[in-house]
């Protein structure tokens, strides 16, 4: 791996009981935002899960730089119906700094999860990943469930990102990927 590379994926085929994605190769350098596009079932989420070890690698390789710290925002995160955990407490789990996040977060920090909408919870989780110490953030369909204002805030968070932090974004919304990503990898 080159020194600026955080992760190198080589000829990867990954899945669960059998391969559902790949072969695919790419690298992610420090500070870069990479988009993953492609139709439903092309294995975008599976590729992220292969990087985190939640999906099985059938062939190929994933190399991570030793100092890589990863957080992964899952697609459609389940909102626990009766958990009184505050937004602030969720942030602190990842060591995330609310001051590094958006103003929209302020109203969610002292709100328990059981009073949040699905969109608010999704935005909170995404913001926590981006405001934490991780230098590789994986975002799986982060614009799902978000209204236009929240998507705007998410865009601002991505644009203001730390120069050492890299992001891999999976999205169906090609304009969103084109606006924020240095490169877009299309899975077929």
């Amino acid at each position: 791996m080159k020194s600026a590379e955080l992760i190198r994926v080589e000829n990867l085929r990954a899945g669960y009981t059998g391969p559902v994605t790949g072969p695919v190769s790419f690298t992610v350098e420090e500070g870069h935002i990479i988009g993953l596009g492609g139709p439903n079932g092309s294995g975008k989420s599976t590729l992220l899960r292969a990087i985190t070890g939640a999906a099985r690698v059938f062939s190929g390789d994933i190399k991570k730089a030793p100092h890589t710290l990863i957080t992964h925002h899952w697609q459609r995160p389940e909102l626990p119906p009766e958990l009184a955990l505050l937004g602030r407490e969720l942030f602190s789990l990842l060591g995330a700094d609310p001051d590094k996040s958006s103003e929209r977060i302020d109203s969610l920090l002292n709100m328990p999860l059981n009073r949040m909408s699905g969109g608010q919870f999704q935005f909170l989780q995404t913001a926590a990943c981006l405001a934490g110490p991780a230098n590789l953030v994986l975002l799986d369909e982060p614009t799902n469930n978000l209204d236009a204002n929240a998507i705007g805030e998410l865009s601002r968070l991505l644009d203001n990102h730390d120069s050492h932090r890299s992001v891999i974004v999976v999205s169906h919304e090609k304009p969103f990927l084109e606006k924020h990503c240095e490169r877009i990898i299309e899975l077929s």
Partner: protein
Amino acid sequence: MKEFILFDPLFRVPFITGLCLAAVLSLIGGFLKMRDEWLSALGISQVSAAGAVAGVALGVPSVLTAVGAAVAAAFIKDINPKSGNSHYAMMIIFGWSAAIMLAANTHHGEVAGETFLRGQLYFIHEGHLVGAIILIIFTLAIIKWLSRRLLIERFFPDYFSANNIPSFSHRIIFAVLVVFSVVLGTVSIGAFPSFAMFFVPPWVGFVIVEGWKKSLAVSVLIGCTAYLISFVTAVLADQPFGPLLMLVLFLFSMIRPLFYLVKNVWKT
């Protein structure tokens, strides 16, 4: 005079043991609820009760057989964690039927079956107390570390594997805590009263306050208060402790709909 019965040395061991268990069970119940595994407490406690009855029938210490059965149940659960509540339902069906069948076909088993399913706090001894004290000290010593890890796993399920951080340590420790809480609860206050203590306090506590730590603290407060009311009432009114505890916890559960009612009225 009845009021002095509470200060009788005979009741000290059961009282302190039950109080320790009330605190630990209602606290662990909060974590089971957070993980959506609240039914596991009843499933494992039923299997544990069956193990305890089998121990009595075989002439082996019942705590050992109860622990063995509970560990086996927890192990089977972990083989396929995605099956969730269906595994626990099968444990309840098996555990209850096995306990009753074993009890019905052995001489001492009948008494033991009644004891472990319904609960007989007054007949426990110092060994239970030592176990309960060790359990509460261990729980308090690791709860902060364990809580953070279990919450991360709940909200960011692949955080540990993504960063090559071993997750087996917190998983095993939590499983051990659950198993020993269930076993001590089952052999001390009974399978069903233990389940009620795991389930009701967080079921109420999680909706009436905001914040993770506060909701756990309120759950423990509810559990201990319900226990104190039950213990004193059972002794003074000569009532069976286990069923009374379940009834008192049921009455505490009424706080939940009352809370929603007051909240809605306040809004309008």
